[in-house]
């Protein structure tokens, strides 16, 4: 991530002498702080740190060092037993995400970790969106059974494709793994977990910061992983911002409407049919069934299944149905009101 040089030099001013520590540390810097010319790349970035995933301009090194010292001071004055709790209250910013304004930089937050340099989850956003897709073309990966691979992110400075889609990059990453380590997928899972934990502990600042990362990470996924992650992310966002669905219609009304809809249109019935078939095949040898239905509503899928089970060759298996429904207004338990025709036929 590139730090705006102007911002930094504006606020950390050695010569002001406002803090006596600044003087002694600047002396220390002048002894050891010289950065050798050959350690910098063309942008003035410290090459050695860049390779390790930390982008810091050589000219900013001393400032960054001072920020780290300040950070340690703050951490040091925290409780004796360690400062792990700061990770709960800490907000991790990617400076490039922050709006360009001086007021942001003057934030007095004790737990400001922006001092820690480096490429965060991703290389800096490319100016040309087309280059993303051309890179993806070049990348090949083998997948056998996915195992829990490295949790990771790619922090190598990414190859810059020129703007023409499909152009061959000079330095392409042929990431071949004998096992699909699903690196970014695992990283996504870690971030989701960390966000969920934070939300559960009511640490909404951290959860909010993490959920923004989830958005980015999800974008790099495809298929079912992307879908699942998107739903989770949405759920987390709703939890964090306390956006709860407002039922505009009386729930019993929507239930009836839904019932009529399902009677007239075959789509849901078809889905139920195929699902029940799949269940019957998968559980062919089972003699106990426990169905847990989320959003049970009128539970229309299950009578058909129960009927099929009742007619199975070895006699009906033991069957248990647990319904989990949304909280109802007026404290009526809508689930209790669900009755199936012919319920008496299936004594279990």
């Amino acid at each position: 991530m590139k730090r705006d040089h102007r911002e930094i030099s504006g606020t950390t001013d050695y010569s002001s002498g406002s803090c006596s520590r600044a003087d002694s540390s600047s002396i220390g810097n002048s002894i050891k702080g010289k950065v050798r010319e050959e350690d910098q790349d063309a942008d003035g970035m410290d090459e050695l740190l860049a390779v390790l995933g930390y982008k810091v301009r050589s000219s900013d090194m001393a400032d960054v060092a001072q920020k780290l010292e300040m950070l340690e001071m703050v951490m040091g004055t925290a409780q004796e037993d360690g400062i792990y709790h700061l990770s709960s209250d800490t907000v991790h910013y990617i400076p490039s995400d922050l709006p360009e304004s001086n007021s942001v930089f003057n934030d007095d937050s004790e737990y400001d970790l922006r001092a820690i340099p480096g490429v965060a989850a991703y290389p800096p956003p490319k100016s040309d969106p087309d280059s993303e897709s051309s890179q993806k073309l070049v990348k090949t990966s083998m997948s056998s059974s996915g195992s829990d691979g490295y949790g990771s992110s790619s922090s190598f400075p990414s190859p810059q494709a020129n703007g023409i889609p499909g152009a061959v990059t000079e330095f392409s990453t042929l990431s071949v793994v004998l096992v699909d380590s699903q690196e970014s997928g695992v990283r996504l899972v870690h971030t989701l977990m960390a966000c969920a934990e934070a939300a559960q502990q009511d640490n909404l600042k951290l959860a909010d910061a993490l959920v923004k990362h989830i958005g980015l990470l999800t974008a790099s996924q495809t298929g079912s992983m992307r879908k699942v992650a998107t739903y989770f992310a949405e759920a987390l966002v709703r939890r964090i911002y306390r956006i709860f669905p407002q039922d505009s219609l009386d729930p019993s009304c929507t239930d009836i409407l839904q019932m009529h809809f399902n009677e007239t249109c075959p789509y849901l019935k078809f889905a139920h049919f195929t699902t029940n078939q799949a269940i019957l095949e998968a559980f062919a040898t089972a003699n106990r069934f426990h169905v847990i239905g989320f959003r049970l509503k009128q539970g229309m899928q299950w009578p058909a299944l129960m009927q099929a089970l009742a007619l199975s060759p070895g006699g009906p298996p033991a069957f248990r149905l647990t319904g989990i429904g949304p909280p109802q207004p007026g404290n009526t338990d809508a689930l209790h009101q669900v009755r199936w025709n012919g319920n008496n036929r299936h004594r279990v």
Partner: protein
Amino acid sequence: MARSNEVNLNECKMVVPLNTWVLISNFKLAYNLLRRPDGTFNRHLAEFLDRKVPANANPVDGVFSFDVLIDRGTSLLSRIYRPATAEEPQLNVAGLEKPVTAEVVPVIIFFHGGSFAHSSANSAIYDTLCRRLVGLCKAVVVSVNYRRAPENRYPCAYDDGWTALKWVNSRPWLQSQKDSKVHIYLAGDSSGGNIVHHVALIAMESGIDVLGNILLNPMFGGQERTESEQRLDGKYFVTLRDRDWYWRAYLPEGEDRDHHACNPFGPNGRSLEGIKFPKSLVVVAGLDLIQDWQLAYVDGLKKAGQEVKLLYMEQATIGFYLLPNNNHFHTVMDEISKFVVSDC
């Protein structure tokens, strides 16, 4: 307390280049956040913060890498680094495991550091280090992604190391042409150095030959507080308190630091006298607070009649081998390449 912290920070900055200081301080502060006083570890945050790099089957600076699943049961992955040959780059998977062609090819099994709790084989700092070793020693490097504490305590890390060793030893494509055997060296830094010792022990007892051990600032300890621990506590990035935390996280619950995993030549250790053990290269940083334990380790080997070379780098701090910007780095790399001799 604040005053002495100021002194520490300044002293520290005097002995390392500034970018090294920034790198290691960054780690130190991040790690402080991850350790909880109740002994648990904020793993998700740790994974989020760690800089990782993917493997790359295209040669970069003459080295290419790929990941392999060694053990399905424990999800044990390793990253393999190989020198690129002059021929075409690998375009298919079969090419990755092409047999080594030289008469003798050292295979270095590497265990990354992190005090048993941090880092992975695909952490950027260790990916970089392993790549260096390939060129330096003309070797194949296998970096083991062993299970970490506190979720996985002793002896998981050693078990994983042993599993990896057996795997390496049984790869036909890693056999040197000279004798159709795999020429195995073990290397590691910090907790990785500790793992090297214990895995070598298991190997030799099981009849698999390890040709040499390389221990960079290996992590050892004991119940006693040694002179170096008291003198250097908190001065150069590391504190006794954090060392204690990591041992408590790795050792079985209820065990103290005289457990043989931590203190191999201590009261619960065993003598290596008369036992066939690989020659060892042990690098000790003069500003590392646990040096007394590392030196005791070297002594223990010597007393048992084992071959050991000590490299004591006086003004070096932990992590000096991560950046090639100091003399200690170059000295040590030189010694490592001499240690892993091709005609062994």
